[in-house]
């Protein structure tokens, strides 16, 4: 016998509730006892639970059964691919069905970031903006943070060398774009600065410490 989840719109039977509790237990147990695989087990359990709640609703089934077979497959396939692309945890390799991992890792105290300045031929130092490629929107800033972290603080190896080469290339491209768009004269070098935010002793922007990390000469 179906009931409507205390009048809020769900159509779950008693057996469904038992299954949902079982899936909830799997999430907790997987997390505690299965290490890295626990994430996979936990996420699959969570999405199975979500699928069950949706499937049990007569309105959802009416929509599915009302469609022709091809569209019925597509309607099931698209959300399935979205979830599968995420739980497979392969980053952007299965694009457009990618991993959705946002604000999942704990940040340490005193977080750090990188900042960039350009030294003009006159010797004057100016901040180098990272939004100089409008088609890429706000993507260049986070991309540079990723490259700088890997190139300047990552483990030595080919990945670090590749990141360093890409970091230099992007910074030089920004310098060229800045020269092209603003009439401040040629840029001689770009500097990468390592900034640390003292979260417990923060007292305005001036309290954010700055350390020189790298100089990239521009041709």
């Amino acid at each position, binding site marked *: 016998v179906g009931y409507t989840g205390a009048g*809020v*719109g*769900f159509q779950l039977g008693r057996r469904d509730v038992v299954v949902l509790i079982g899936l909830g237990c799997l*999430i907790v147990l997987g997390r505690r006892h299965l290490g890295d695989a*626990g*994430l996979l087990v*936990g996420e699959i359990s*969570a*999405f199975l639970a979500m699928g069950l*709640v*949706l499937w049990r609703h007569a*309105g*959802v089934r009416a*929509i599915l059964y*009302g*469609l022709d077979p091809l*569209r019925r497959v597509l*309607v099931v396939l*698209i*959300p399935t691919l*979205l*979830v599968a692309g*995420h739980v497979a945890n392969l980053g*952007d*390799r299965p*694009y*457009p069905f*990618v991993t*959705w*991992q*946002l*604000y*999942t*890792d*704990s*940040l*340490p*105290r005193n*977080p750090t*970031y990188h900042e960039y300045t350009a030294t003009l031929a006159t010797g004057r130092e100016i901040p180098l903006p990272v939004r100089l*490629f409008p*088609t*890429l929107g*706000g*993507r260049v*800033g*986070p*991309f540079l943070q990723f490259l700088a972290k890997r190139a300047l603080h990552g483990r030595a190896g080919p990945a670090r060398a590749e990141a360093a080469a*890409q970091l230099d*290339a*992007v910074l*030089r*491209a920004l310098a*060229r*774009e800045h020269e092209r768009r603003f009439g401040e004269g040629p840029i001689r070098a770009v500097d990468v600065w390592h*900034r640390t*935010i003292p*979260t417990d002793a923060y007292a305005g*922007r001036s309290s*954010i410490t700055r350390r020189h990390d790298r100089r990239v000469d521009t041709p």
Partner: protein
Amino acid sequence: VLHQRVSPETLGCVRIGVFGIWLVSVALAPFSDLARFPVETLRPIGVLNLIPGPAWPMLLSPAGLWGLKAALLAGLVLLVLGAPGYRAVALLTCAMLTFYQGLLRGFTFTNHGELPLLYAAWVLALFPADDAVSLGRRRVAARAPVMYSAPMALVALVLLLCYSLVGIRRLVESAPGIFLDGTIVRYVALRAASARGTFGDLGLAILEHPRLARPLLLGFPVVGLFEALAPLCLLSRWFRLAWLPVIIGFHLGVWILMGFLFLFNLLMIPMFLTEVDRLVARLPLGERGRAAGPRHSRPG
């Protein structure tokens, strides 16, 4: 269920909304600047690997990028107008949009801002979203009502799933630690310090005034829970009425404090997560709209 009954006019209006947003977005992007971005950073991702290697130099040349923009604009204009040949134009334009968005991500990194709208475009391409509110529309045979409700419900589900993927990952992988160690305050400060957004240093002010940080610390797990349970909005009107202010407030808070605006999501929410069919039924949109009259279904 949300969108249990949807008229062809509503789906037509949504078609204009979705492809119209893409049209504005593509029109505002110059494209030509991509030819000046270092090509060595490009890694073809996902379906972009299907493009043969020799084609890349041509695609990334100024002429190739201009051609892509022109083709996208032409396709999107036809789709907004609902011109004849909808299915073919829609599929081709969606393929180009997927390439374009993949290119931006392949050059830099994969953000998520535009993906729900990309999925929405694909769904609309697979359903008869041109049966109403379209240019020079010839009369079509009556279709089953589910052909209009299914795409709306599917896009709503996909949009809600995008929140759920984030929320469930955070809850399964990082709870409860991430909600108790003050991480969210550091994320806000870090983003505010490095991004210098529209609202200045508001995000950094929370470090100087711990009282301002308290709502963030309390709100972070609440938002995580609402994100994880997002698909329930399809079934429960009450949950949806609670979910909408929480998530819209969260997006506005992220914009003000971290300088990061999920514009496409904010534009999609009124289209797909409200009873938009009631609003469209009141609009004078041709014979069908008048015949349908205002609807009084009560989904959820």
